[in-house]
């Protein structure tokens, strides 16, 4: 009888997973294969009759193009800086949420608002805040400055908008990690005369390692695909475009599917490399890495 039950269970399991699996294969798997195939073709919708297999030509075009590398550099910069700031701010926020005595429920509710708000909406908030004349933040700057029309100030504003929007997510993941740290350990260390900072660095952080690793991985991959904030704030002007922005521009404004696909594949490969690095680095273990960040 037990083999029958097992076989039935196996069948049910496969049947229950099938619809979700089909969706993921059809909407994520198939297009990515199609995208890889497209990336080896010259395929411009303005000249559809010219579609032709060109091998690695598109890759050569993209990888020798300075716009691609500028966008790549901007994306990496925004990713690294914003995730680093988010880790520090998010940790602070997590500690406040974990330890606060006054209005804990209120704090947790309010913190979720930036997480839930539509990114485009938040980006408009920042756009108007930094627009000379209209904005309350622009009003704080010296007369005649228009930060969104200059590369570096605009990148800082993009990072600020990204940090505001996603720090709550980071904080929630870290809060879950904090909850796993037993209070007794910290108290015992306090008894032995360890100060607050010492306890944080030598007890809390090492125990939170898995949570920090997951939070960093999720946020890094997410930050790398930054799109909405940049689209609203500068639309990639003055070399502030991310790889997602220039891919979209090539596709929708340029209607160049070959080049667009090549960029898509390159972004996909980069994301896979980032994920691989995270998994290997955090598995092989480098004690103290989290503390130095």
């Amino acid at each position, binding site marked *: 009888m037990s083999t029958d039950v097992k076989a039935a269970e*196996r069948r*049910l*399991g*496969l049947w*229950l*997973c099938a619809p*979700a*699996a089909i*969706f*993921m294969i*059809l*909407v*994520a798997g198939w*297009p*990515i294969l*199609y*995208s890889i195939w497209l990336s080896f073709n010259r395929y411009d919708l303005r000249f559809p009759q010219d579609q032709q297999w060109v091998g690695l030509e598109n890759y050569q075009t993209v990888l020798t193009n300075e716009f691609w590398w500028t966008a790549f550099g901007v994306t990496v910069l925004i990713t690294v800086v914003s995730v680093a700031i988010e880790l520090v701010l998010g940790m602070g*926020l997590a500690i*406040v949420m974990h330890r606060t005595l*006054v*209005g804990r429920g*209120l*704090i*947790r509710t309010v*913190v*979720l*608002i930036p997480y*839930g*708000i*539509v*990114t*485009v*909406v*938040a980006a*408009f*908030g920042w756009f*108007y805040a930094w627009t000379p*004349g*209209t904005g*309350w933040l622009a*009003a704080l700057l010296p007369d005649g400055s228009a930060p969104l029309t200059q590369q570096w100030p605009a990148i800082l504003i993009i990072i600020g908008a990204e940090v*505001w929007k996603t720090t*709550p997510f980071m904080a*929630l993941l870290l809060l879950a*990690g904090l909850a796993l740290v037993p209070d007794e350990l910290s108290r015992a260390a306090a008894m032995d005369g360890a100060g607050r900072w010492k306890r944080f660095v030598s007890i809390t952080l090492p125990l939170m390692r*898995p949570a920090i690793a997951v939070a960093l991985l*999720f946020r890094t*991959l997410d930050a790398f*695909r930054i799109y*909405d904030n940049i*689209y609203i704030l500068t639309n990639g002007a003055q070399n502030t475009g991310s790889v997602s922005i220039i*891919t979209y521009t090539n*596709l929708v404004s340029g209607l160049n*599917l070959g080049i*667009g696909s090549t*960029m*898509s594949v390159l*972004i*996909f490969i980069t*994301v896979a490399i980032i994920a691989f690095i995270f998994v290997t680095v955090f598995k092989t273990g480098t004690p103290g890495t989290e503390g130095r960040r």
Partner: protein
Amino acid sequence: MTRNRIQWGVLDFVVVAFALIPVLWLVSLSLKTPATIADGGFIPTEWTFDNYVNVFTDGGFLRPLVNSIGIAGLATLIAIVLGTFAAYAIARLNFPGRSIMLGAALLVAMFPQVSLVTPLFNIERALGLFNTWPGLILPYVTFALPLTIYTMSTFFREIPWELEKAAKMDGASSFQAFRKVIVPLATPGVVTAAVLAFIQSWNDFLFAISLTSTERSRTAPAAISYFTGSSQFEDPTGSVSAAAVIVTIPIVIFVLIFQRRIVSGLTAGAVKG
């Protein structure tokens, strides 16, 4: 102790200000009159609700809003039904391919969406799905699935096995046991996953602007980014702010009602998964 309380109170205040100021700024902008909209002040000097009326009358914001509600709602519904099946199987059943399924879900969750834009754009144009509701629902379901599978399988694991066994002992089939015993117990998890999936679909911008071209299926976030004001001489700031506040309202309501569940869902799905 008092000093401690004050310290935490100050910190709490900083946190609340950090989270709310950008939102209040948009609310403030949306309530300013055209004459005062460019005064740069944080608090409106002249108050008006005209911007809210205008986005619906001249701005044509109603259709995108209906599109957004319909598309995000349907995508959430489908993702929840399919995600519930898969999460139940992953949490409860022993079958080959369980870890493949979890791996695939993780892979999709980490997927750079922009990598799908180019192929989907072309595939949907070929299939006639471009600029239709299903054209957006399909990718939204796909990207909501990993979230729902992870969140719900964590919830399902915490439901006591014995209840299901007892139901089977009483003569229920596996499917009946699932439907009549597990589903009611799992409802909180399902609601959590639904709220998270809805927020995610409601938020999307990249697919919304790449896979739509007209009012027929353009969602609210995409429509806001195309606002130009009712005439070419008019500044769209007031309308954009009003529309922005309108799309934010459902999220604020969800957050107020489901705060605890959103927190547990996000942390369970991400950390334990």
